[in-house]
């Protein structure tokens, strides 16, 4: 199998779908001639032409809204936000029009919204955000967040096939840092969790970039056997996988790169406290970015984003509990 980066896997997914299905097209700012701010659609315009690789005006509400309208006729737009942060400018169309249309009117909205998200490279307050929790709290949207190249491709293909609006969280910091074997052709990765590493003593739950932080932090931690659960999908959220792992290990650490309050990890913790309370041998521990904007300067950014050592410390403490 070819080895691809996380970014190449995302490109690959779109290329395969666009080749196989002419209803699929991509739209966004600077994605055509320029190939996108991160070059995810590099070369697409040459293969598919400017109509299916649409450079749009600088208008996020316009991007989401026109994509929704086009989807009503059977097209399957893939919208790229230049940075996930800018979805705030298309927020209303996404949560109020896309999210509620099928429930209200029985009219499906087959759009995929790609959100390059996350920090770790001095992007500052407006190029580092992880907004997924906003959308988990907006009924009618599905939300997925791959951590590996293989899942990035498979989840994106499934998102494109899904007749519902899917928010695809792609972590900028993984684009070129993560590489892996990626099957050729069109395959779907289910919207379920994945055990990134089997373990017996404690479960670390994460998604996106934090899965790698979790794996690195627990690779060899006083010989303990640590399970790492990669959620992959936030809506739907794989409750069974979460509960099964917690029942097995009885101890859980949940990591969020997003701001702590009302983050995905808060929901996971709440589910465990509701449904696996009897199985716990210790408190539910969370490691998350505190509730501040993501600062620019490296020492400040590192101080707020969860680091390998932060996870190590949390795991050690809980193991010793």
């Amino acid at each position: 199998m070819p080895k691809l980066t996380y970014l190449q896997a995302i490109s690959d997914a779109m290329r395969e779908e666009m080749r196989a299905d002419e209803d699929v097209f991509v739209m966004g700012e600077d994605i055509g001639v320029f190939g996108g701010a991160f070059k995810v659609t590099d070369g697409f315009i040459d293969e598919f032409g400017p109509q299916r690789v649409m450079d749009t005006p600088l208008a996020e509400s316009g991007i989401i809204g026109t994509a929704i309208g086009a989807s009503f006729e059977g097209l399957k737009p893939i919208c790229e936000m230049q940075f996930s942060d800018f979805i705030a400018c298309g927020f209303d169309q996404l949560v109020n029009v896309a999210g509620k249309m099928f429930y209200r009117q029985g009219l499906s909205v087959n759009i995929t919204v790609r959100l390059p998200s996350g920090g770790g490279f001095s992007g500052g307050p407006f190029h580092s955000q992880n907004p997924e929790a906003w959308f988990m709290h907006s009924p009618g949207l599905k939300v997925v967040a791959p951590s590996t190249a293989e899942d990035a491709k498979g989840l994106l293909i499934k998102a494109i096939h899904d007749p519902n609006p899917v928010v695809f969280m792609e972590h900028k910091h993984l684009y070129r840092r993560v590489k892996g074997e990626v099957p050729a052709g069109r395959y779907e990765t289910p919207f379920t969790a994945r055990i990134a590493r089997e373990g017996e003593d404690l479960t670390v739950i994460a998604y996106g970039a934090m899965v790698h932080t979790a794996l690195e932090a627990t690779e060899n931690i006083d010989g303990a056997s640590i399970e790492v659960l990669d959620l992959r999908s936030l809506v739907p959220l794989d409750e069974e996988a979460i509960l099964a792992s917690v029942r097995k290990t009885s101890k859980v650490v949940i990591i969020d790169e997003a701001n702590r309050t009302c983050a995905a990890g808060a929901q996971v913790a709440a589910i465990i406290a509701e449904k696996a309370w009897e199985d716990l041998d210790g408190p539910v521990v969370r490691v998350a970015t505190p509730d501040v904007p993501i600062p620019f300067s490296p020492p400040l950014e590192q101080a707020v984003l969860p680091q390998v050592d932060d996870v190590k410390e949390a795991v050690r403490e809980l193991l010793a509990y």
Partner: protein
Amino acid sequence: MATETARIAEAASASEHLTAEDRVGLLRAMLMMRAIEERAMTLYRQGKVPGSFYDGYGQEAVSAGAAWAMAPQDRLCILHRDLAAHVIRGVTPARIFAQYMGREGGVTNGREGNVHFGDRHLGCVGMVSMLPDMMVIATGLAMAFKLRGEARCAITWFGDGSTSRGDFHEAMNWAGVQKLPVIFVLENNQYAYSTPLDQQFAVDPVERAAAYGFPGRTVDGNDAEAMFDATREARERAIGGGGPTLIEAVTMRMHGHAAHDDMKYVPKEQVEEWRAKDPIDRQARRVEELGHDVNALRAEVKAEVEAGVEEALAMPMPDGDGATAQLFADEPALLSDGRGPWSGFARSGSDA
């Protein structure tokens, strides 16, 4: 005497593209809209319509005239004062009353309320409250038509107040840049809830169209045939690749913003002045001129409406157990064609 001649002139001012049936059909759609909304208001007062209730009394010509010019394969994003458009596309009175009353048999099966509906099987998209989000949606529909090279057109309506929001601009600019087959009907009914025009904009928004690169024209919004003709022309341009058109329909909101609103903020004279321009009286005079029995038509509409109310009242309320079902679609559920009754389509194949 003067009014007499005026009336004849008016009656004469029919679009050359309308047959006698078309002209009767327009009147019928307007009568139906008014009768349904008046009846629904009674149901509301009787407590049979939950939530709030909005109507388009006095604005019937805007949605009737414009919708009459749209073909079955065209797509409509219909707003809250535009019931005649739903009627013309083929939504029955019973389903509309059931919609208002939150019944199982309503267009949204009770999930949505009052005017927040659109029958996807008739090519209509159910509006969201956020104004004017649907302008962007209509632009997206038009984008789909252009991407596929189809000779089809999208249309949406929105009010004077809605022109102040960012989505108005993003839709107008996008449609202008991409030269999309979309018709924007600005329903200028003098007020946005209680807010008069001069607090909404300094210059009539019809002037903006040129700055977006397409024509904008002002039409008498109380003249159904003028609305039809302006829309027909805009549609011709659109499907011919000429791009969007902004049509400003000048009219008046004759009732409060919603049932609870007594309209104290509107000068009595203004209402009286506009009452004299009632769009239904006007179309009725034309139809009479044609020798058609308008009273019979009124009676027929009334009967249909009453039957619709009976039918709707017989429908059950939805079962609470279903409230959480179908949040997500298992398979695509798209738009399909509706009715396009204009004789012009019949004459020349429906993509006239």
